[in-house]
């Protein structure tokens, strides 16, 4: 929790501050303004308790569409090159933010609904003359002559249900149904289902509930189609939301200059008869929601159009390779596709599922004329994909992307320590290939002169392809007499039965030239070695792995850094690939 706050802290804090501000501002407005004096007389504080969440709902419904516009976010991220890293990283935590906003919408909907339940009940009672003289007088104002109404519940007969007529075949059964009943108990339901605000309110709340129940993790993970289809009820939600305020039933008094409520409230019988108290006039509040949500709705439509266009762009298969341990490598080409190191794409295979898009980190370097992903068997979709590719695919794949923070900082350091744990090693394939390409072409952007790569995994199963990559790089570097450029160590953290052949040059387990180490790395030793070999250098440390390891590395970086410019300095980069 604390970790989450630190990582996501600042934007969430800003968001929460805005929510609190909106709530308090609108609460006070409806609770204190003279315009709402008479409205408050009928409704009490339930008025403010309904309007304040409404404002927060407007704000959050505006926000909720934005985090899922991944193509748009990519564009923005691209233009934030100068801005702080935290800003860019925040844009990548889109789904968590989407869920957070959704929870807030659900909570505020609950408060708003309960407040309106109270409102309708009290309006009903006012109309029936249950409360005092003032309430009855206010409720009796109708929209005719020189009057404007305050109480939106109109035309109630304050009598018991009418006697059954002889022609009535069901003997008053029709009056059992709330929509046809004259029973005052049913008036709120009648209003709910016949007024714009009521009907849209019920419909959108129902949509929201269905969306939420089908978005629970068990449902999402088991049957994505149900989650995705039901989630499209958000269209109903937004349409209903925009029309929700069109009835203008929240009424405020607009002739407060002529009619002072404090003086006139005790004299309802004199209204319109004495000069100090003309009949109070009311008008409904204008619908405001559309102003909040119209922008994001248009943006979202553009996002879907863009996704569709990208989907239609042809993706060609360049090469399909099946590696040991059922790892599929797909090399694809797409016109106009530009990637950067460490980014990911979404893949879609229509022959398996029309709707599912799954993210994969790219393992190719930007310098290559294709992009590649390595896919492991990790569930139904990936299993089916591997099977389809083995039989040679018939249809084309859909590719959306690239997305994600570009990990370009790796090129800025003279010395880089790259730590990849488990599946976290994948972006480093892209990074190391790119570094090597840049080095060969003497790219001025590349300042790296030495790389230390630490690969941690329980076993190398499913990563043989990465071991091959390291071997290839190692060979190329030796050919150019640059054996020192890359130093790598593989740590098999799950290995307990060890048969180590010290006689042979290459290691038995993975065929890597440098020896494999068993057990976790001793970071003190590693940092010490780096420091000794690189005095007076700035070393950048990059991790793709668990948060616990990040804490350890950060501590070590602090420990082994020295302010003295003649000594080594370590910088830990918190980026999550």
């Amino acid at each position, binding site marked *: 929790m604390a970790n989450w706050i630190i990582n996501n802290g600042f934007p969430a804090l800003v968001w929460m501050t805005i929510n609190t501000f909106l709530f308090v501002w609108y609460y006070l407005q409806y609770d204190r303004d003279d315009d709402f004096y008479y409205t408050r007389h009928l409704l009490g504080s339930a008025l403010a308790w309904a309007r304040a969440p409404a404002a927060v709902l407007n704000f959050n419904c505006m926000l909720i569409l934005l985090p899922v516009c991944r193509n748009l976010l990519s564009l923005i991220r691209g233009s934030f090159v100068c801005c702080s890293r935290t800003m860019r990283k925040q844009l990548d935590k889109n789904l968590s933010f989407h869920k957070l906003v959704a929870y807030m919408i659900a909570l505020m909907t609950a408060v708003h609904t309960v407040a309106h339940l109270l409102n309708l009940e009290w309006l009903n009672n006012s109309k029936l003359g249950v409360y005092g003289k003032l309430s009855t007088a206010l409720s009796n104002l109708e929209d005719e002559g020189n009057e404007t109404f305050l109480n939106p519940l109109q035309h109630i007969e304050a009598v018991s249900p009418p006697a059954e007529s002889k022609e009535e075949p069901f003997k008053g059964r029709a009056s059992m149904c709330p929509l046809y009943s004259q029973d005052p*108990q049913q008036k709120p*339901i009648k209003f709910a289902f016949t007024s714009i605000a009521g009907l849209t309110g019920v419909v959108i709340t129902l949509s929201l509930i*269905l969306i939420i129940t089908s978005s629970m993790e068990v449902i999402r993970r088991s049957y994505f189609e149900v989650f995705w289809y039901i989630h499209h009820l958000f269209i109903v939600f937004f349409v209903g939301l925009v029309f929700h305020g069109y009835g203008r039933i929240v009424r405020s008094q607009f002739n407060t200059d002529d009619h002072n409520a404090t003086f006139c409230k005790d004299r309802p019988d004199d209204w319109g008869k004495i000069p100090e108290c003309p009949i109070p006039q009311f008008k409904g509040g204008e619908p405001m929601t559309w102003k909040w949500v119209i922008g994001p709705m248009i943006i979202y439509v553009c996002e879907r159009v863009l996704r569709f266009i990208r989907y239609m762009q042809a993706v060609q298969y360049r090469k399909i390779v099946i590696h040991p341990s059922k790892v599929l490598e797909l090399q694809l080409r797409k016109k106009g596709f530009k990637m950067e190191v460490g980014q990911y794409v979404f893949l879609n295979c229509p022959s398996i599922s029309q709707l599912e898009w799954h993210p994969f980190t790219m393992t190719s370097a930007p310098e290559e004329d294709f992009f590649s992903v390595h896919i492991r068997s990790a569930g139904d979709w990936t299993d089916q994909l591997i099977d389809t590719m083995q039989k040679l695919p018939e249809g084309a794949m859909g590719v959306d992307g690239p997305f994600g923070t570009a990990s370009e900082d790796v090129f800025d350091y003279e010395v880089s320590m790259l730590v990849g744990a488990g599946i976290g090693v994948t972006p480093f394939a892209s990074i190391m290939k790119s570094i090597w390409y840049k080095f060969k072409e003497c790219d001025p952007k590349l300042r790296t002169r030495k790389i230390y790569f630490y690969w941690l995994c329980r076993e190398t199963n499913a990563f043989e392809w990465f071991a091959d990559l390291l071997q290839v790089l190692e060979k190329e570097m030796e050919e150019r007499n640059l054996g020192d450029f890359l130093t790598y160590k593989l740590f098999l953290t799950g290995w307990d039965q060890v048969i180590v052949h010290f006689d042979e040059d290459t290691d038995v387990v993975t065929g890597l030239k440098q020896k494999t180490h068993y057990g976790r790395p001793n970071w003190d030793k590693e940092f010490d070695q780096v420091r000794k070999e690189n005095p007076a250098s700035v070393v950048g440390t990059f991790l793709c792995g668990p948060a616990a390891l990040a804490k350890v590395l950060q501590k070590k970086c602090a420990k082994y850094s020295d302010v003295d410019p003649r000594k080594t300095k370590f910088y830990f980069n918190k980026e999550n690939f």
Partner: protein
Amino acid sequence: MGRIEWAMWANEQALAAGLILLAGGIVGVAGQFRGWEFASYAIAAGVFVCLLEYPRSKRAKGTSVERTGQYCFTVCVKAFGPVTRNYYVRAFLHAALCVPGGFMLATVLGCVCLGIASLIYLAAAVRGEHWEPILPRKDTRKPVAESIKSPPQNPPPRPPPEIRRKQAKDVEGAAYDNPMSVTDDE
């Protein structure tokens, strides 16, 4: 992504409906609304639905994820046997339970949600699904195979105690020749 068991979604929807019915009922009673009797019914019905729906069913295919602390509820629900096992019963039960909620605005949302849950349960029942309790796995020890001989009943033959004591003092004399070589020079 396996085929969905509709009961999974019906369960989430019904649980949500129970909570909404309960909340609406509480508002109706606390606010002393017209028709508060329906609200008090809604509280009872809401609690009942929540208790019935809290324990998740075991999935026919795949791993089942329990809700926190659902074991005691599982035991209670299991005790009713075929009544709670069958989803047709649940579908009609929820349909019947939701009707009185429709007579008062505070509970009408709970009524509609429960009605929808009832429809999804009907779909689940038509597809032949049923409720299975998630019970803690009992580790059955594998029966010992025939070929494993029972451990020796008697200790290995040893010389009598007096001679063993003598051997402890005289290590050289106690040594004996191995029938087979135990060094690895070969």
